[in-house]
């Protein structure tokens, strides 16, 4: 039958590129940032990904894991991925030494809304490892100052779980406001205690209609953060969330990452609150 995908030339979505592990940097307990380099040259500039997108990192025999980009792509062919060791694949990644090889497909998915980021005040809210996909956007803001206020609200279980702490000073030096909180303080902790959305109280939001909110973290934290933003007058279509579901094909062909109306890998992972609100409160959907 003559059917056409209008896709020329066809490239198999299963095409896997080799990457070589360059270095591993411990971040917080169970979390490290991995630097990979493309093992073969000729990767097109711009094909390396936008903030908020993800790669499928592949350890043969263990499988693939969807890992978000933790730094904006440049032309160096290098990728930064902050990874938490949780399952088979990430545990296998944590056994790799520099010089060893992994496979990579990607980048995939929607990124953060860069056009809206250019034109608005921006509030980023990150919880735990959820800061990883926001870090690539923070890097983008540092390279592309917009002239608008950019704030980052960060929360973690305890001070030792606050991701990228050594970098906060640099972020602030480029004009980004950083506010931190922890659920449980330690004796040496001088900062705020409480869940991350309480940091919204510290923020004046004089222009909610010219502000966008970008959230990534545990689902419950994202839900309450979005509600808090709505309460402060941010419209539902100006709140973006990075949704997590198990991804298998990463290209919208396997159905695995479905959540209600969306195939998260293809339509997301970054989705607007108004695209989710109809299904957000239905458990086990």
């Amino acid at each position, binding site marked *: 039958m003559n059917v056409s995908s209008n896709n020329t030339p066809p490239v198999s979505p299963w095409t896997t590129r080799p990457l070589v592990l360059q270095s591993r940097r411990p971040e917080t307990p169970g979390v490290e940032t991995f630097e990979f380099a493309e093992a073969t040259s000729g990767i097109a500039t711009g094909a390396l990904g936008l903030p908020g997108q993800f790669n499928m990192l592949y350890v043969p025999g263990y499988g693939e894991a969807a890992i978000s980009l933790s730094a904006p792509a440049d032309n160096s062919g290098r990728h930064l991925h902050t990874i938490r060791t*949780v399952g088979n694949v990430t545990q296998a990644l944590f056994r790799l030494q520099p010089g060893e090889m992994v496979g990579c497909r990607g980048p995939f998915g929607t990124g953060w809304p860069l056009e809206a980021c250019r034109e608005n005040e921006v509030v980023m809210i990150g919880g735990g490892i959820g800061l990883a996909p926001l870090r690539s956007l923070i890097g983008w803001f540092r390279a592309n100052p917009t002239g608008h206020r950019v704030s980052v609200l960060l929360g973690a279980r305890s001070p030792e779980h606050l991701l990228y702490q050594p970098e906060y000073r640099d972020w602030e030096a480029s004009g980004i406001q950083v506010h931190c909180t922890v659920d449980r303080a330690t004796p040496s902790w001088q900062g705020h205690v409480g869940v991350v959305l309480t940091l919204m109280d510290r923020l004046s939001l004089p222009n909610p209609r010219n502000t966008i909110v970008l959230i990534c973290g545990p689902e419950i934290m994202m839900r309450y953060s979005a509600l808090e933003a709505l309460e402060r007058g941010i419209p539902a279509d100006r709140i973006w969330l990075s949704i997590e579901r198990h991804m298998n094909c990463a290209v919208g062909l396997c159905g695995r990452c479905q959540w209600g109306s969306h195939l998260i890998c293809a339509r997301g992972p970054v989705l607007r609150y108004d695209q989710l609100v109809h299904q957000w409160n239905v458990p086990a959907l």
Partner: protein
Amino acid sequence: MKEPLFLPREEFPTLIARLLDQGYRVIAPTVDQGAIVYAEIQSVDSLPRGWTDEQQPGRYRLKETGNSRCFDFAVGPHSWKQFLFPPLQRISTAIKGETGWTFAVHEPEIHRYAFLGVRACELAGMRVQDRVFLERGYVDTAYEARRQASLVIAVNCAVPSANCFCTSMQTGPRCEGGYDLALTELDEGFVLEVGSAAGADVLADWDLQQASAERMAASREVSLNAARSIQKTLDTQDLRDRLMAQLEHPHWQEVGERCLSCTNCTMVCPTCFCSHVTEVSDLDQQNVERERRWDSCFHLDFSMLHGRPVRNDIRSRYRQWLTHKLATWHDQFGESGCVGCGRCITWCPVGIDLTVEVKELCRDQP
């Protein structure tokens, strides 16, 4: 396209012979394992001549018709997706050498299939999968190659089953395009319609007469009779919105108590496309293959996230399947995922009928 032709019954074997001569592997209905299934045939003798199927929820039986027609049945447990989107596909390999891993995409062998006996609902099923695999961004290149290489010979449905509801889904019973050739079986032969250049090529230099007005009328009557005999209905008016408004209806629990979560409905569905890729490796883990298999939203592991299933009871898995098929498919692909073939009703081991469940689910909650 050309005017419809008439293929006398005694010339029917020539059609198969032409397909074989032109290098096609002919896949057609045939009787096997107590059902009419799709398999490779070499001659018309393998077609289910004189057989029909009786279907009820959770029940399928073959029955002799006493006539010599070849296509007097509805649809069986197989669908054409097993040829276009095979249940097991090797997709890639990773081989460890001196310098690390070598990754390669597996290039599947593509057969030139001629699918003979494709029903209108099945044409619709193919178009639904086309949209999933070809038209939404990333392209399943293996599916595309298989689809391009295949020839579709439709047969208008004369004897729908008690579980058919294509008339509700507006997918049948008459084939309205999407085929290379289409047949309507009459006692003395077939009205033969040409739907594409590839279809015309099969008939090249074959001296077939145009179908007479009487036979054209008889052909249309076959479809009208088929449509009239379909009893089952599904009200599709605003169905997406009506179902999405009932995500917490107590009836989900009730059907969840009957559903076995066995995956049969999704396996036999001509549009269900879910799959899962697993690693297949040797003991040394030096030669690794990735294998893609049909999977199902009824499989507990399917919604696994951080070691826990999101849909951890049968109720939520049934809700996922039904709402995806009839509601969120619209959100994702702009149409319904159901073509009304009734397979999920027949092949459910406990006879769950989605058309009945939908009526319950769309009733106002007590």
